[in-house]
Structure formats: C-alpha cells, structure tokens
C-alpha cells in the first residue's frame, strides 16, 4: 500500500514501523467483577496522590523562578486533583456501574468539562481546560504511563505518529530511528527540521497514516518523493534497495565539497554556516564543512525536563559548543519558548493562538528573571570563543531596546562581580515578523547584525499556518511579497554596514541558492544535512547572472513565469 504525503527530509529507508498512539483522552471501557471494585478504587486513589506529588514537585521547581502570583495557579491544579466531588463521582461510578477506574475518570472529566463549555464568560469557560489538563495527568498515573515511549524504539525503526512535538523529537535522538512519518505537519514543521538535523527521511502531512500501519510492519519511507509504502511486495522492495544504493552514491559525490570553499564562479566568497538544536550536532556541523553556527537554538535546555535549567548548566552547554567551533563563530539565539514548545513546569494556560501569543522575546521581556539567567550564561560563555547573540521575534526597535536594557543590566552586574565576558559581543536581531522587516532600516542602525528567520517570516507574511496541512500548499517562499521583504532586509543591512544572515529553511533549500545570492545575501545558515548541496550550488552560481535574474523576478507579477525563471536556473 502506497501513501503520499509531504516530503520533509530527504533520504530513503526500509525498516519496521513503530507506531506511537496519540495522546487522546479516551480509554477503553472494561466491566469489572464486584470483588475487583476495591482494587480499582485503590488504584484511582493512588493515581490521585501521585498526581498531587507530581504537581507539588513542579510547583517547588517553578517557585524558584516565578513570582507568587504564578505559583498560585499550581494551587488551583492541586485543588482540582484533590477535588472531593471529582473523587466521589469517580469512586461511585466504579462501585455502582462496575467499570474500570480509567473509564470512570474519563466519563467524570468529560461530564464536568462539558458544563464549562456552556458558560458564556470566556475566562470561566476556559477553566474547563484546567479540568481536562488535570484529568490527563491523573490518567497518566492511572495507566502507569504505559504509553509507548520513544525510548522503547527498536533497531531500524520508522516512527509513525499523529504529530511529533519538540519534546518527542528530542527524546528520539536515537540511532535506532531511521525515518519519521506523521499525520500532521508541513515542510517546515518541527518534525521536518529535526529529521533534517538527524539526516533521516521524513514524510509529513499524511492525514491518517497511523491508522493504516501496524506495529512492526515492514515499511519503505521515501523522503525524496514524499511517499510511504506499507508492506511492500518483493519487487518494490528490490526496486527501493537499488534506489537506496544510488542515493548513497549521490551523497558520496557531494562529499567532495566538504573542503571546497563556498565561492561563486565569479569569485564571491559566501559564508555557509549550520543550525543546531542540541550540542551533539556540533560533530555533524564540523564534518559537513560548515563555517560556524549561524543559529544555535537554546530551547532544548528548557524542554523535556521538570524544572528550569540553572545558569551553570546553561553556561556549560554554551561553552562546550563555543569551544568546539572556535575560531568560527557561534550565534546563540535566546530562548524562543511559547508557540508549540510549552513547558510542563511553567505555562499552564494553553493559548488559543500560540504562534501569535506570548513567545520568544515577548516571553523574556515579561519574565526578565528567566531571561537574565540565560543572558548571564551566554555572556560568561562568550570569553571561550567567538560568540554572537541574537533575539528572536523582535517586532520593532522598542523591543530591541528593551532587551538591550536588560542585557546592560546583566553586564553591569557581572562587572561588579568581576566576572569576565566579551564586552564586544555582537548582538543581533532575528527578522521574522513582517513589522520588523518593514522597519528594518531603523533596526539595522541599532543591531550589530540581522538574521532572517524565513519560516516565521513567510508564515506571518502570508498568514499561513505552516503546520496546517490544508493550507501548507499556500506556504510559498517564492511569493513576491516574501522576495521583496528579503530584498528590503538585505539592502537595509548593507546601507548601515551590518551583515545579514539567513537561518531559515529557505537558506538550506538548494533550489533557492541562486536567488538568495542574487538578493545579496552573503551568509547562509542551514541544517547540517543541506550544507554540501548548497555549497555545490554556490560554486555553480555566477553572481552577476544571479543578480540579473533576481531583479527580473522582483517585478514579475505572473507567478508561473517567476517559478519558471527560478527553475530554469536550477543546476546552472
């Protein structure tokens, strides 16, 4: 059976399916015998007390970093977990209806949450989510967390899931995983980025692939074509074995570009750097021949854990990367939390529209005490190599100034304690919100450099949720509005003598290399897996020809012609 989806990371693999059930809150109903009631009730009570101790732990951890006001929300969760009505309703269901604790809990939570749905006042209506959240936590303890975890993945597994969160993908940094296939997601979803970092194939946006595959089924995943074949016949299998061989040869051909400098055919040197998500990736960055790290995401330090990382832990992590990459530069991006990266120990209010919500620099400016810890750690690491730092999601000059005020405060503090740091550390901004791209002339006066985050810039400019499979086809890096914004950014940086880098997915797609060079970009940063392909295309590019074609495109109203012009140039 062949299933089509969106190709999210290249490569072909043959392996066994490992299916992760989605975290739906819907257990199986089981009828129990009368003499099992006591055991079932006991099990439920234990789950309640386990949930309470888990919440207490989170609360203690959070109290070190947050104000009293926020801690109070954990109290509400604790009271919900301990709610006498909830408890007695569940116990009475188990006893009277003779059903298992899981199903009794499910029915009680559903029934109570339903009451909230009818409330007119939005604030109170949303408290139904709190009931659900706590219900899920209790359920987790009740089922003994037997959900298959990625730690259980066997050799040569292709992981099938509804959607993979950053927390999932980080836990998966595992040699046993050779491919991902997900129901949801688009080309630039987190699953895609992670798969590219791990250099394994991924196909996303497959709608309901998880219902069409069983655990341990032999499957083929072709990330180049965006195809998954479940239980292939022998001919297909043989065919794909051949394709894997050919693909490996192509990879070998690319390897000759590792030590070739990225210079255009007419002699312009381009800096090709790599993006990393976790320090372990430094090895593949160095072996790819990238010249430094153009984006060091720091969220990994904060997710998949029960409490905030300490300053020391952050410092050590940054120091390791910085030292290994020296003398090449490392651009550390301050945390981009919020969005789809919720912390279990912090943000307990689920936002309706997280991509437009409290995230990244907004989060840091709202909670300066969390921000300062990271700034201290980065500054301390700055003396161990070539460190630059940038702020994500800056919307305009005011936010840059506000962030710099906090940075200056931290610097003064460090000075007063005679802690060493690089006083000349460059501080840049990410240009990923249209408002920043439109006021970039002002931002370039005050920032030391600009770094274009194309994933967000495109999704905000085109109003397309890149994870929404129904509109993912509208996510178009070659939309004229995007190309014009890019031009605006590069020109503004150049006018103020500031260097401009691009660290979004667009930089790593070799079919855009020529256009990007034509726009005047001289710094590109991408997943390590793309470095060689882009390098190869740079050596084939003639910069003056690229500039000519880009100028034409900037005024090309007909999208088909525009695409044609870009494609014609492929492989030149």
């Amino acid at each position, binding site marked *: 059976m062949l299933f089509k989806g969106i190709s999210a990371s290249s490569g072909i693999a043959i392996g066994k399916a490992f299916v992760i059930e989605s975290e739906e809150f819907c257990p199986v109903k089981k009828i129990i015998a009368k003499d099992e009631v006591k055991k079932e009730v006991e099990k439920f009570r234990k789950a309640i007390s386990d949930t309470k101790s888990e919440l207490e732990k989170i609360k203690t951890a959070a109290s070190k970093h947050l104000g009293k006001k926020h801690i109070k929300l954990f109290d509400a969760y604790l009271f919900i977990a301990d709610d006498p009505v909830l408890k007695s309703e569940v116990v009475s269901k188990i006893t009277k209806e003779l059903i298992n604790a899981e199903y009794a809990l499910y029915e009680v939570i559903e029934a*109570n949450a339903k009451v909230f749905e009818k409330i007119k006042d939005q604030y109170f209506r949303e408290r139904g989510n709190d009931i659900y959240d706590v219900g899920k936590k209790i359920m987790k303890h009740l089922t003994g967390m037997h959900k298959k975890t990625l730690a259980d993945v066997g050799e040569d597994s292709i992981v099938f899931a509804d959607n993979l969160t950053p927390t999932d993908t980080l836990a998966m940094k595992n040699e046993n995983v050779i491919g991902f296939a997900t129901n949801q997601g688009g080309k630039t979803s987190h699953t895609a980025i992670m798969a590219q970092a791990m250099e394994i194939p991924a196909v996303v946006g497959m709608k309901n692939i998880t219902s069409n595959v069983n655990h341990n089924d032999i499957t083929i995943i072709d990330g180049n074509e965006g195809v998954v074949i479940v239980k292939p016949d022998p001919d297909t299998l043989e065919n794909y074995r051949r394709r894997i061989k050919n693909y490996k040869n192509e990879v070998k051909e690319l390897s000759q570009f590792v030590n070739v400098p990225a210079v255009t055919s007419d002699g312009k040197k381009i800096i090709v750097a790599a993006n990393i998500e976790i320090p372990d990736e430094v090895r593949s960055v160095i072996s790819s021949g990238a010249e430094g790290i153009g984006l060091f995401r720091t969220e990994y330090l904060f997710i998949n854990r029960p409490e905030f990382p300490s300053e020391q832990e952050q410092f050590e992590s940054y120091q390791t990367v910085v030292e290994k990459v020296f003398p090449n530069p490392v651009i550390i991006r301050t945390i981009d939390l919020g969005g789809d990266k919720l912390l279990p120990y912090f943000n307990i209010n689920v936002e309706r529209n997280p991509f437009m919500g409290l995230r990244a620099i907004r989060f840091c400016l709202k909670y300066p005490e969390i921000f300062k810890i990271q700034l201290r750690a980065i500054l301390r690491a700055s003396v161990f190599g070539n460190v630059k730092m940038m702020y994500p999601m800056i919307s305009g000059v005011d936010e840059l100034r506000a962030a710099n005020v906090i940075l200056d405060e931290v610097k003064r503090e460090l000075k007063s304690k005679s802690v060493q740091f690089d006083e000349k550390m460059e501080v840049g901004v990410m240009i990923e919100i249209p408002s920043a791209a439109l006021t970039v002339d002002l931002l370039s006066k005050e920032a030391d450099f600009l770094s274009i985050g194309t994933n967000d810039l495109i999704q905000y400019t085109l109003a397309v949720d890149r994870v929404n499979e129904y509109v993912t086809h509208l996510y178009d890096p070659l939309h004229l509005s995007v190309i014009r914004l890019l031009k605006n950014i590069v020109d503004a940086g150049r006018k103020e003598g500031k260097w401009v880098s691009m660290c979004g997915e667009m930089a790593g797609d070799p079919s855009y290399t020529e256009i990007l060079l034509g726009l005047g970009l001289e710094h590109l940063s991408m997943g390590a897996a793309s470095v060689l392909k882009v390098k190869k295309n740079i050596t084939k590019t003639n910069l003056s020809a690229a500039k000519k074609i880009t100028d034409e495109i900037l005024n090309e109203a007909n999208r088909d012609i525009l695409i044609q012009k870009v494609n014609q140039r492929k492989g030149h």
Partner: protein
Amino acid sequence: MIRKTVKIKNKLGLHARPASLFVQTTSKFKSEIKVLKDEQEVDGKSIMGLMMLAAGNGTELQILIDGIDENELITAIENLIERKFDEE
C-alpha cells in the same frame, strides 16, 4: 444550619485563584457547605464546582452551611470575600 447571601466583590470574581482560597478555607472545617447561584448548587469544597458557577464581580451567592463548626466557617468565608481574596 446557616443560610446567608453574599456578594462577590473582587474584580475577577471567583476565578481559579480565589476559588482555590475558598476551597482551602472550607476544607479546614467539618461542616458541609453548599453554594448556590440562581438554580445552580455546588459543593463549597469543590474547586471544580465553584468555578462552574462562573461567579463574576457583583454576583450574589447563597451559602448553606450545616455542621458543628458552621458559625466559624461562615465567618471565615465572609471574611475572605470581604478581603476580596487579598487580590487588590
């Protein structure tokens, strides 16, 4: 048995935090407590129930308390509401 009408005075009403304080107070007492808003009646020791009332600022609630420490409990509750749950 005590029956009393109280008026919620804090800005946000009985939202998560005040409801927590309410439950924290009521669960210290042995008496049973019911809270009524119009026709809706909930257990005064259940945070879930209290939040379901969606009692915003200015809402009138009827409180029914029955038990050996009912007098102490009603005083504590009135006190809490009077102090606006230490919110402002």
